[in-house]
Each structure stands twice: as structure tokens, then as C-alpha cells.
């Protein structure tokens, strides 16, 4: 996020020539003023018809989901297709899916920051917003699943009047609660911290009464003094360093929910890295889907360039290949264990009644990303759009396969059962997508979509 201008004074000449190897990150020879105008005007002008159409559609789907959720909460979990054998299915699938989506934002803002990947500046703001919204969507599912969601605060460890009953710190479900709430809070803080200087820019530019007041309060009186920037930069670096292990821990801990149990297909040491790779994989796919839409909808083609998308394709290819290796290892270990129950799970996944879900997963997650070996696929925007959606379909099915196929045929054949989602469950799932897009569209209108101060810092990259 910072620029090394140390020698710019003495070596002005070096900046005059264009690099033969690197292309500018921001196209169109923008000036500092252009960046401010381009990004701020998105917040100033009235939303177009396309935005309204998207917003009303998302809001409608979200409201349908809210109705289905209300029905579930007032009636009971019996409105779902769960049974004694399959006690976790759609709801937990959605939960793990959304948490996974929420991994790309902090990955981009923290890990790529530590690796000094300057291209992240165009996408980090919206990817972080996506993370926050995805974690909100995820958080709803376990709360609904509690059956009595109004008592959800019982998972907090606090002195209480229930005979001073303490939460069970030895339970992975409690670890999960701590991991996700920490992740949400830190992601929100990181996102807000990054926003402060840009909100100051908005404050100094936008004159409409309410907006000005909002940005004035939210920018905390930021004046861009170098002493302030200097501490800000230090804190940004420290937060990136703290958020990096946090990102990797969240999905590891989600995987403990499964891995610490004794269910064949869940009880596996490969789960933490396998889940983390899958989460980054699906998160990046979602960032690509969204960025392709955002650059068109908000006319940000000069900022989010095919180069950015190509870089993200490469991350997707890498993580997708890790996921593929994990699938192969899982199958190998299943047979190598010599345990008949483990072997049965592997065979049942590939050839049992849910084999269609398993093969959808394998096609979308192991085969689809391999197209990104080809530069043609990495640079064709319609192609990236389709492939990134297929990857997320695959990643949703991965969680479905892990959860349902491991449970539905357990140790006792007499308790074998099938699971089919009810309409309520499907509408709740769609509703979470409605919520996701509703909040994301609001974010696009209220906050600077691209980190102006960071983009200004890399504006002269590979340029005079």
C-alpha cells in the first residue's frame, strides 16, 4: 500500500521509461484526481436501472428466505428434511459454503499484502466487503439450526444464573464459535481501517447533507498527516500479519467440527489443509464472479483489468489443484486404512445413491480449474465468468457430499436413510444468496468500491 519514493528525487530518470516486463496495474494513464473522481462519482450519482433491477431481485429473494426462516423458527426443525440418521445436511452445507467464500477477502488483504502483491489494491476493498457479508450469511445458519435461536447467546462464556453453567471449552463447536466471531470482528476492523482514509476523501468531496455527515463521522477526523499515516501503515502491516494465521485457522477449525468426530469420511487428519485450500479456491472463484459483474456494472474496467482476473485465475488453479490432490489422498487413505467402514464411505460416495453429487463435485472442482492452465481461458472474461460459477457449484456440492454421504449410511445398516431437502430449506439457501447480493449492492453504493489511497500509491507502477 505504500510507495517507495526514497530515491525518486535522485533517480527521476528511471521512472521515465516504461518497464518492458510489467504492465501498469491501472489502465488509461489516470491521475490522482481521476482516481478520486472515478471512485467518488460512483457514490455520488444516482444508481442506474441495472442496479435497481439487481437490488430489487436480490431483496425479493432475501425476503422469501426470511419468510422460510420465520416458518422454521416458529414451527421447528421438523420443517426440514433431516431425520435421525442425517442430522446435518443443507443448513450446515450452506454454513461451510459461506464461510469458505469468506476466505478470499482476508486472503487478498492480508496474505497478498505480506507478499507485496501490488495488484491486490484494485480488488481488496470489495473482496473484504464480500468476506464480511459472506461470514454474516454463514453465521445465520448455525443460529437457525439451534432450533431456539433466541438463546444463541448461551454459547458466550459469561457468568450466568443457570446454576453458573459454563460452556464446554472442550467442544469443537465452541471453538468454531470463537473462530468465526473472531474472524468476523477482525475482518470488519481491517476493512474499516482501510476505509478511513477513503472516507476522508469522500468527506472532502461529497456535499449532500446526510452523506457528508456520515463520512464525516466515519472518517474520524482523518487529516492525512504523515505521523498518522506512519502509525497507520505499521498497524496495517501488523494486522495483516495477525490476520494471516487467523484466515488459515478459521476453516481449519470448521473442519475440526467434522474431523474430531468418529464418523467415517469425517475422522481424517487431512481435513484442515483440505478445507483451507477449498475455502480459498471457492472464495477466489466468488471474487472473480463478483469482480466481473462489478467492473461492468460500475464501469471500472480501467481499475479491475484482465490482468487482475488472470492473477486470480492462477490462484484458483493452484488451490483447485490442491483440492484435487486432497480428493485423491482421501480416497487412497480410505483404502490404505484397511478399515471396512472407511472403504465403504469412499465406494458409497462414488457409486452410491448420491454419486451424482460426488461426480458434480469432482467435475467442477478437479477438472474445471484445469482450464486455467491455458492463457486463452485465463484472459477470456466470459470464460472466467462461467468457470468461476461452476467452481462454486462444485464447492457447494463438496460440502454436501462430505456431510450427507458420510452420515446417510452409518455403521448400522438398519438405520440407513436418504436425505431430500424440503422447499423450506431450498428457499432459506436461496435467501442467503439474496441477502449476500442485497448487502453487496448496498456496499457498492455507500462506500468507495476501490481503495483510492492504495490505488494512488501504485498508480505509477510500470509507468512514468
Amino acid at each position: 500500500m505504500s510507495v517507495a519514493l526514497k530515491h525518486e528525487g535522485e533517480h527521476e530518470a528511471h521512472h521515465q521509461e516504461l518497464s518492458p516486463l510489467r504492465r501498469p496495474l491501472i489502465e488509461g494513464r489516470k491521475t490522482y484526481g481521476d482516481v478520486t473522481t472515478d471512485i467518488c462519482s460512483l457514490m455520488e450519482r444516482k444508481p442506474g436501472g441495472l442496479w435497481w433491477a439487481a437490488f430489487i431481485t436480490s431483496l425479493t429473494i432475501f425476503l422469501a428466505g426470511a419468510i422460510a426462516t420465520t416458518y422454521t423458527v416458529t414451527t421447528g426443525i421438523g420443517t426440514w428434511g433431516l431425520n435421525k440418521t442425517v442430522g446435518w445436511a443443507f443448513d450446515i452445507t450452506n454454513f461451510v459454503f459461506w464461510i469458505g467464500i469468506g476466505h478470499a477477502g482476508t486472503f487478498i488483504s492480508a496474505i497478498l499484502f505480506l507478499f507485496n502483491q501490488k495488484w491486490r489494491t484494485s480488488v481488496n476493498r470489495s473482496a473484504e466487503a464480500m468476506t464480511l457479508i459472506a461470514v454474516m450469511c454463514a453465521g445465520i445458519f448455525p443460529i437457525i439450526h439451534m432450533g431456539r435461536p433466541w438463546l444463541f447467546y448461551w454459547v458466550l462464556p459469561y457468568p450466568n444464573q443457570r446454576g453458573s453453567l459454563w460452556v464446554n471449552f472442550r467442544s469443537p463447536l465452541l471453538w468454531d464459535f470463537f473462530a468465526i466471531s473472531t474472524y468476523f470482528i477482525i475482518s470488519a476492523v481491517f476493512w474499516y481501517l482501510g476505509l478511513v482514509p477513503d472516507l476522508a476523501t469522500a468527506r472532502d468531496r461529497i456535499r449532500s447533507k446526510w452523506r457528508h455527515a456520515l463520512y464525516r463521522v466515519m472518517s474520524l477526523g482523518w487529516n492525512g498527516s504523515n505521523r498518522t499515516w506512519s502509525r497507520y501503515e505499521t498497524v496495517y502491516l501488523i494486522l495483516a500479519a495477525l490476520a494471516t494465521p487467523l484466515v488459515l485457522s478459521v476453516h481449519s477449525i470448521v473442519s475440526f467440527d467434522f474431523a474430531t468426530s468418529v464418523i467415517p469420511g469425517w475422522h481424517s487428519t487431512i481435513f484442515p489443509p483440505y478445507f483451507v485450500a477449498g475455502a480459498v479456491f471457492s472464495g477466489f472463484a466468488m471474487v472473480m464472479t463478483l469482480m466481473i459483474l462489478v467492473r461492468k456494472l460500475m464501469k471500472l474496467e480501467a481499475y479491475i483489468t484482465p490482468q487482475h482476473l488472470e492473477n486470480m485465475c492462477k490462484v484458483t488453479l493452484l488451490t483447485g489443484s490442491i483440492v484435487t490432490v486432497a480428493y485423491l489422498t482421501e480416497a487412497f487413505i480410505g483404502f490404505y486404512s484397511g478399515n471396512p467402514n472407511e472403504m465403504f464411505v469412499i465406494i458409497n460416495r462414488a457409486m452410491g445413491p448420491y454419486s451424482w453429487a460426488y461426480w458434480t463435485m469432482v467435475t467442477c472442482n478437479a477438472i474445471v480449474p484445469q482450464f486455467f492452465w491455458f492463457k486463452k481461458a485465463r484472459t477470456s472474461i466470459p470464460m472466467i465468468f462461467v468457470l468461476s460459477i461452476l467452481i462454486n457449484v462444485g464447492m457447494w456440492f463438496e460440502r454436501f457430499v462430505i456431510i450427507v454421504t458420510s452420515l446417510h449410511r452409518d455403521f448400522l445398516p438398519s438405520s440407513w436413510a436418504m436425505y431430500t431437502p424440503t422447499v423450506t430449506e431450498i428457499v432459506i439457501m436461496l435467501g442467503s444468496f439474496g441477502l449476500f447480493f442485497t448487502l453487496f449492492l448496498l456496499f457498492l453504493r455507500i462506500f468507495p468500491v476501490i481503495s483510492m489511497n492504495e490505488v494512488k500509491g501504485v498508480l505509477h507502477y510500470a509507468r512514468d
Partner: protein
Amino acid sequence: MEKKGLYGLIAEFDTPTDVVNAVHKAYDAGYRKMDAYTPFPIEALNEALHLKRSKVPLIVLIGGIVGALGGYLLQYWASNIAYPMNIGGRPMHTWPMFIVITFECTILVASFSAVLGMLALNGLPQPYHPVFNSPRFELASRTNFFLCIESDDPEFDERKTREFLEQLSPGKVSDVEH
């Protein structure tokens, strides 16, 4: 704001290089109470202003230690003293089970102390600051780079400092009222 009179003099520059050079010259001329105001962070300015190492990392370290100890002791106390639960005769002090939440608490408290420490050291939120009184200062968050020499600097002299700033060939030099 009871103080009256001049807070300082502010000069406006078009490029980051100009402001860095200006700060170097001002430091060489003996000015110490000054600050640069820029739309994005410029590392070279830290050196030019001779900023001391930030205290923030120390605050974060303390926060991290407090978080780790707090998280671990909470779990130990809750599951061994306040509500002991013996599961299958296993040892009560199940430290491996406490690692995950200890880790999360470490990150949580360390990050909070980083952000709150930074805000406190920077005096944010800051409802009022005199630099906003200078006429074109709103450009400091967008396109332009400013150097403000404050009037309580011992070297400050309204006429001399203005002349000094003007010979740095800035866009404009203006007064900053309290």
C-alpha cells in the same frame, strides 16, 4: 478552541517528490514541529521527518500476551474450577483442547490493541484540527501534498518561514488559523 492566531503556515505541492524534498530542506533549515499531509502514505516522509519508531508494536505484543493468558485462564478456570466436568476419567487439565480458543483470543486482543493503540496515539477520532481551516486543504485527501510548519516551532517566524516556504516553489503558501 481558546487559542487564537496562527497555527502555522502551509505550503501545497503537486507531486510526492516535491513534498519529500521540501520536508528534507525544512528539516535542514532547523524546523522540527512540522508535518506533511498527503492523500496516500509516503514512506520516504518518515525518514525526512525523522520520525521515531512507533510504539504500536509494543502495544500489540502486550495485547497478544494479555489475550493469550486471558483466554487460557478463562478456559482453565471455567472447566476445572467453576464447572468441573470429568469426561471418562481423563485428566482435568485438558490443555490441548484449550489451544484453539487461546489462539483466537490472542489474535483478537492483539488486533484490538493494534487498532485502538493506533487511534489513541494518533488522537483519533479528532473532531477538530486547525489544518482544515486552510483554504485548499480538502485537496490533501485527493490530489495534493501539503507541508505545514507549526507556529510553536522555536525557529518559526511568520515572515522568514513564509519566505522559506515560498522559495521551495510550492503551488501556494497559506496561513493556518487556529
